[in-house]
């Protein structure tokens, strides 16, 4: 069995607001092994991003707080870790890239400065060496003319190029895990494919794991080995990519997969693309039973009475549904 890098156990990240406690992440279990790519999918507001940011403790506290759970990084719980210890893990062991490449880089420093800053923080290098390393990283992510571009400012790069810079920055300390929080959502389709390809290439080169957060099922099918489906702050299904797409067990996952547009079932068959009716329940007062019950077409009395547990329906295939 592969070595477990990250093991999130019953994580609850809640936010205090004027209206009450928002249970953004409400008991999530998630495991990532060395060298694997795990997709985390779900619609907006299901807690994907908060889970990702919780791992690196990038949640503003207050208003956020860890209500419960453990985030075990190679066996060590990150939640009680002091800030200085956490800073040794950030970028060097776990790196993150974000959804918005346009705003994720500081406009007043050159990209070389920003990449060099990470390298200098974690490795004992001179300014000159850090700059050379930054050039090398830019070359690695296929930015043309890196020796010259290293002294450019973020506003001189396009969106796709900025995401490459972000990847270069994240990769510069050779982390064991890359958390990619919707890395392609803000980019156009051709660039999306290039960025995913680049991440794949980096992964193979460094032998790292990737936690890929996305709401695009197509992206998951292409890049991941295992998928975790989240709904309203909870994991509803977890399986290998093949099992999940071949035999989705949770009605929510089934709905997600049916909502993928397919070229082979096109306009001539006059088939309408399916959508899941309704919206995500409020995380202020989540329903007592299954959180998907209100939108589920197979809903039964038992669904609204108690939250179904996550059970192993087939080896390695977990689902939170009574069906």
């Amino acid at each position: 069995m592969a070595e477990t890098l990250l093991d999130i156990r019953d994580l609850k990240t809640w936010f205090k607001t004027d209206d009450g406690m928002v249970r953004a992440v409400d008991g999530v279990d998630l495991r990532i092994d060395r060298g694997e790519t795990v997709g985390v999918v779900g619609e907006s507001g299901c807690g994907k991003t908060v889970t990702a940011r919780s791992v690196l403790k990038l949640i503003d506290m207050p208003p956020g707080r860890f209500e419960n759970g453990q985030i075990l990084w190679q066996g060590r719980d990150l939640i009680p870790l002091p800030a200085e210890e956490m800073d040794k893990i950030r970028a060097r062991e776990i790196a993150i890239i974000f959804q918005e490449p346009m705003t994720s880089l500081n406009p007043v420093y050159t990209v070389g400065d920003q990449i060099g800053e990470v390298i200098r923080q974690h490795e004992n290098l001179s300014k000159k060496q850090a700059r050379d390393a930054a050039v090398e990283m830019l070359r690695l992510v296929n930015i043309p003319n890196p020796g010259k571009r290293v002294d450019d400012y973020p506003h001189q790069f396009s969106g796709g190029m900025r995401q490459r810079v972000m990847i270069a920055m994240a990769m510069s300390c050779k982390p064991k895990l890359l958390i990619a929080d919707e890395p392609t959502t803000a980019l156009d389709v051709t660039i999306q494919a290039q960025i995913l390809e680049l991440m794949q290439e980096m992964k193979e080169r460094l032998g790292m794991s990737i936690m890929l957060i996305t709401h695009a099922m197509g992206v998951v099918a292409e890049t991941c080995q295992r998928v975790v489906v989240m709904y309203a702050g909870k994991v509803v299904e977890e399986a290998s990519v093949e099992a999940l797409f071949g035999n989705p067990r949770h009605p929510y996952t089934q709905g997600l997969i049916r909502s993928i547009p397919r070229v082979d079932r096109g306009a001539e068959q006059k088939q309408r693309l399916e959508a899941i009716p309704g919206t995500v329940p409020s995380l202020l007062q989540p329903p007592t039973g299954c959180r998907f019950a209100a939108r589920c077409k197979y809903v039964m009395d038992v669904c609204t009475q108690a939250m179904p547990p996550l059970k192993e329906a087939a080896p390695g295939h977990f689902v939170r549904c009574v069906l």
Partner: protein
Amino acid sequence: MIPSLLGISVVLFTLLAMAPGDPFDELATNPAVPPEVRAALRLKFGLDDPVWMRYWHWLIALMHGDWGFSFVSRVDVSTLIMQRLPVTLVVIGASQVLAIAVALPVGVLAATRPYSLFDQIANTFAFIGFSLPTFFTGLVLILIFSIQLDWLPFVYRADIAATGWAFYWEHFKQSVMPVTVLGLFQGAALVRFVRSSVLDVIRLDYVTTARSKGIGERKVITRHVVRTALIPVVTLIALQMPIVFSGAVVTEQIFRVPGIGSLLISSMLANDTPVVMGVTFVSACLVVIFNLIADILYGWLDPRIAFR
């Protein structure tokens, strides 16, 4: 810069020409001066020429370095201004340095701990600070430190006899109150501005990126937040310069600082138009220069503003 200064000088000159009273009012009421002498004097100084002609003469003379001649003290305007300007520049400069030195750390600390006790105390003092006018706080300080405690002199003297360290010590002692009053007044408004500017930046995505680099919260704030947050603060400081100058006029009056502010008031009361013109023009030049410095600072703080 040159066109704006020319425009300012035209406006100033026209306003002063339209203002009631002229420097010979006093001579007019003096029975010892015969009317012929008065008329001859007016002719000599060109006081009955049309405004545009007088402006032209003033401008040409200014370009030759001649700022005119004070009717009252019978000294060149440039000499008068040069005597007073250094004192004002020291007081204004020191108060701005004080304002920034107080406002930056307090504003940044308050913004990084919003709604904390420190933030609330800082806010309260900031509100008190810019609600109280300088003439009030100035008088209160004089009452406490000069009259009650007798620690500091309340009249600013330009003719200190001491030499060496004693000389500087005396100067320091007499500058403390004017600089504090002016500096804290400016600083109070600046604290609020720095705080909101930092709060705007601290929520941006690239600050989260910076945190994810593991460089420590301190470097995140100093390198990634404060630098960008300073850009609008520079604008505010530059825009506040005229207010600082008018504040200096009041403060100099209270503490009897012999700067250009008190020169302006005394020459206005005496209808000494050339001096008024000279002083206001010098203040205008200083304000324009400070804005130029602000523009240069922008380019340094924000690479998105390119110089051509």
